[in-house]
């Protein structure tokens, strides 16, 4: 699939506000954000019913850090979902479950995540925005915003996450990688609510790493990279997942060609370098990029992928040593 065909160019003139091809930037604001009714459902069924009833005119609000910035003028009904029972981080027999209303701050500070091998989520979450934003912003909201410059989504994809969605017609589970179709567009249907993220158990001898480069701390990612490396007992590579995010394409890039280089080999310097080059070639930033030129982003993605692979490999090796130590004793 040629991703660059999906990716609309940014059309701008000096002195004018930046306009995306096809729709005007809302900050030019001729129409105000004036919803006329506010609901606060107490159950997920109530929320799904309201969303189905009002369709396009309703928006769910959780943290509000995206809705109250974009302030769309066509919204008439606000469905406040913050009091629904979806704020949790639970360990189950088949892995970890994170409720969609869990705030970034809770993910950042969660001890369970770090202990059970999901520390990359804390590493990624603390790089999003600023502390006051992370105190209210929810993981579900971030995923549904479907921006490739999300910090959390590459980290979740590196862990092979699946998301659960509940609608009027029932419940469905979708792998996170299959969720995004374009900038700001996901397969979430009208009237559906994202309720939970399901993470499989971390395979043994795994190491993860995440890196983000932004202009300032609270900025979106120019480029970010997330990876999980799983070693076998001899130290060869059993599995690797490399995801690149940021302004590098309409959706997250899963660097499959780079991953293929690692099959059952011992990971060395040259493989990592070649993999980083291949991953960078998979990226397709717009020529009209705002946060950095396309050339810069291609260079940056290669460097970041190389660094996260090295970090993750180091951590995987440490985990192998730690497990050998634990097994001996």
């Amino acid at each position, binding site marked *: 699939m040629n991703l660059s065909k999906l990716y609309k160019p940014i059309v701008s003139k000096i002195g004018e506000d930046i306009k995306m091809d096809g729709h005007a930037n809302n900050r030019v604001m001729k129409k105000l954000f004036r919803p006329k*009714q506010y609901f606060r459902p107490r159950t997920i069924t109530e929320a799904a019913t309201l969303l189905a009833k009002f369709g396009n005119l309703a928006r769910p609000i959780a943290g*509000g*850090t995206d809705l109250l910035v974009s302030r769309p003028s066509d919204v008439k009904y606000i469905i406040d979902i913050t009091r629904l029972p979806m704020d949790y981080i639970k360990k189950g027999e088949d892995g970890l479950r994170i409720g969609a209303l869990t705030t970034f*701050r809770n993910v950042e500070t969660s001890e369970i995540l770090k202990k059970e091998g999901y520390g990359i989520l804390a590493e990624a979450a603390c790089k999003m925005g600023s*502390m*006051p934003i992370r105190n209210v912003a929810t993981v579900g909201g971030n995923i549904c915003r479907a921006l490739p410059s999300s910090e959390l989504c590459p980290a979740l994809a590196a862990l092979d996450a699946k998301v659960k969605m509940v609608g009027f017609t029932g419940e469905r589970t979708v792998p996170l990688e299959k969720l995004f179709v374009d900038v700001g567009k996901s397969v979430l249907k009208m009237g559906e609510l994202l309720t939970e993220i399901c993470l499989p158990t971390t395979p043994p001898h795994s190491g993860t790493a995440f890196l983000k480069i932004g202009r*300032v701390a609270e900025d979106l990612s120019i480029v970010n990279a997330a990876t999980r490396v799983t070693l076998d007992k001899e130290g060869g590579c059993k599995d690797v997942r490399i995801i690149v995010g940021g302004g590098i394409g309409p959706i997250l890039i899963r660097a499959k060609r780079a991953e293929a280089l690692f099959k059952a080999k011992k990971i060395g310097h040259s493989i990592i370098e070649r993999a980083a080059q291949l991953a960078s070639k998979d990226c397709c930033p717009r020529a009209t990029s705002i946060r950095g030129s396309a050339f810069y982003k291609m260079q940056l993605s290669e460097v970041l992928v190389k660094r996260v692979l090295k970090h993750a490999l180091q951590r995987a090796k440490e985990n192998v040593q730690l497990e050998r130590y634990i097994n001996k004793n």
Partner: protein
Amino acid sequence: MHFRELRRMSNLKDILIRIDVNGKAVKLKVKPYQTLLTILRDELELTGAKLGCGTGECGACTVIMDGKAVHSCLILAAQADGRKITTIEGISEGPKLHPLQEAFVKHGAIQCGFCTPGMILTAKAFLDEHEGPPTEKEIKEAFSGNICRCTGYVKILEAVLAVAKSTKKEDEL
């Protein structure tokens, strides 16, 4: 007012909210689109919180909600129902300033003063939450959501470090 505006207003369902602001219980009728910042400034006349960017990037609107620093420009007033809000007006005890306010004055961390309420409340929320003495790096990361155009941040950092040192030392004793 324009006729269309009038008709639109009549369709609006006001929401009754109950919030605790600086220790006082307040009952208000708010519109669905009003933010917490709007009602703090316009209805309750607590003008310490400022409207800077309106998009959650400058931190001039920072208040403390249920113990956590939040950008009040990004919270609908209706969402604040049932919560405990602390604004800059609420951290001093009568004429006696909060240690952070004293430190900001003593260290020269205030120039125009526009960012100051947000800075002090972020500092308060951070120090209250943080266990043990924070490092400079941790303080800087906590302040990534507050922008200052005047001071260059150095004195603000010094003031926060000074308070952190004195309060965290007291905890140990």
